[in-house]
């Protein structure tokens, strides 16, 4: 047997031995507690012991913020073009192709019409798994179109933000999306339709400094990092350590930058209360979402990314 064949035979066998059994338990990176995965899913990935907010996949987020079965996807119709012919260690088109394979999506946005307690909304969710939720031309276009639909159909917009910022590989074209999306939101405002943003971990750079920061109401998830500059950049600039809790949502609430820090499990009712009040509609009691329990993601995917 050649050495190569020896390794070939060993490879698949090894993989089999580990991962085909479902992970029943997760360890909370915050309190160290062993959590039964089913319980974690049912709690919208909030640790039942310490309320640490694990990252929530986009589809789960949509389930959590809409009436069951009401979501109708409107995004997924555009893709970024490599206008700059950008290549560093890898070409931009190849990067996009890999990200598409990984996420099954053309860009970092999932948006669609939905109802929440019967209230008509347009929900826009950013996906951190897609290139760190970075904003290129396609993302800017999707958000703009989603807001335009809301303006035309008189729907409130709920935007769940997460992003490392504007996407470097599209240069100033990414930067322009900050203005483009803002123009669309101004039109929505002119129709007196509410725009509410939910800031999740992390939301920084050009996304934090444009549409994420101009919600009529801004809700922050507990412990989420939100700010203009990345922490490493600030550290390099000022050459000193950053204060405890710096740029976390609790810090931002204290400094008057957001309206509230709110446990994810309470977002549904809060959003319904805010939208109904702002549009002068009767109050609604929103039933809790029946959470569908799915197997947890592969190891290293979603856990422990928060530093």
């Amino acid at each position, binding site marked *: 047997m050649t050495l190569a064949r020896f390794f070939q035979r060993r490879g698949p066998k090894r993989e089999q031995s580990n991962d085909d059994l479902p992970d029943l338990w997760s360890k909370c990176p915050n309190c160290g507690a062993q959590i039964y995965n089913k319980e974690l899913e049912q709690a919208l990935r909030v640790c039942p012991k310490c309320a640490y907010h694990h990252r929530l996949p986009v589809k789960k987020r949509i389930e959590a913020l809409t009436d069951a079965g009401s979501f109708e996807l409107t995004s997924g119709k555009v893709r970024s073009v490599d206008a*700059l012919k950008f290549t560093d260690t890898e070409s931009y088109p190849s990067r996009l192709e890999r990200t598409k394979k990984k996420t099954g999506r053309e860009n970092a946005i999932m948006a669609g019409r939905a109802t929440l307690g019967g209230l008509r909304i347009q929900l826009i969710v950013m996906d951190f798994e897609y290139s760190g939720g970075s904003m290129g031309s396609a993302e800017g*276009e999707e958000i703009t179109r989603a807001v335009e639909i809301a303006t035309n159909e008189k729907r409130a917009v709920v935007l769940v933000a997460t992003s490392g910022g504007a996407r470097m590989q599209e240069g*100033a074209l990414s930067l322009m999306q*900050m203005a483009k999306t803002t*123009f669309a939101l101004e039109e929505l405002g002119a129709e007196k339709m509410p725009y509410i943003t939910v800031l999740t971990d992390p939301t*920084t750079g*050009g996304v934090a400094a444009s549409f994420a*920061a101009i919600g009529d109401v801004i809700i922050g998830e507990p412990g989420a990092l939100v700010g203009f500059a990345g922490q490493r950049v600030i550290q390099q600039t000022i050459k000193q350590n950053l204060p405890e809790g*710096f740029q976390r949502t609790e810090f931002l609430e204290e400094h008057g930058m957001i309206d509230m820090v709110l446990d994810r499990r309470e977002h549904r009712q809060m959003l319904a209360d805010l939208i109904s009040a702002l549009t002068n509609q009767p109050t609604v009691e929103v039933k809790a979402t029946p959470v569908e329990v799915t197997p947890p993601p592969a190891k290293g995917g979603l856990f422990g990314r928060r530093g």
Partner: protein
Amino acid sequence: MALEFEKPVIELETRIAELELYGKENGVDMTDELELMSKRLERLRSETFDALSRWQRVQLARVAGRPTALDYFAKTFTHYRELHGDRAIGEDAAIVGGLARLEGRGVVVIGQQKGRDTKENIQRNFGMAHPEGFRKAMRLMDLAEKFELPIITLIDTPGAYPGIAAEERGQAWLIAQSIQRMTRLKVPVISVVIGEGGSGGALAIAVGNKVLIFENAVYSVISPESCAVIAWKDVKEAEKAAEALKLTARDLLQFDIVDSVIPEPKGGAHNDANMAAENLKKALLEQLQSLESLSTLELIQQRSARFRKLGAIEELA
């Protein structure tokens, strides 16, 4: 201080001047030699400046002695009256602005201001604004709108300041609000990138009906240095990053991010600030005239449509 690629040109200029002086002082006729050398200088200038690399333009955009916002306020405009403060927290010297006249016509001018020496650079935080700077800009926009004056913004910043106090006071929020304020301005707005257009901090005051750029200015989502660190894990790759980012006037014109390019004197605006200021004036007058006939609503619609089409996308079936 001269840039590396400028040095041969400057050396030749110096030699010509020396030779001229020598001829005069010693009564020697140097006409032929001087003519020959002048021709060579012209050729050298063309070779050096007609085909600048993107990285060289980044260097020119940042070169010490390049005209700043205040230089243009003084030379392109008259009667510049600087106004201070954000009416909330403080005065941010990284953003300057006030009232001025453009060929007699009243305008509000706003610009990012880098220092012209080390002392001023410290005072002005190298043109990197805190939230107060953006609030001051918005306050000046309010003033312009109230008195129906056109707004001219001059962009020249490495970016908004990444510091603790800036974050505490809502850097992201103030940039977002300034962009938002500009989307609904009822007066004509012309934004001109005069040097370095650094990311969100630049865009915060660059949402104009028309966006212009000087020939050797640059405008980008990230600095070449930061891009190099992210992409190649090495700041020394900034030259490569500058090429990749397509951040020059010509690149941006191709992407419709800017509407036109303002020519600079040979070798860059720092070689002849007066000529650069004249070129700016000509461009501003031309653009203002094109916007004058628009109603308030049309101005907002034109600005919105201008930004609506920006981006490089393809539709999927």
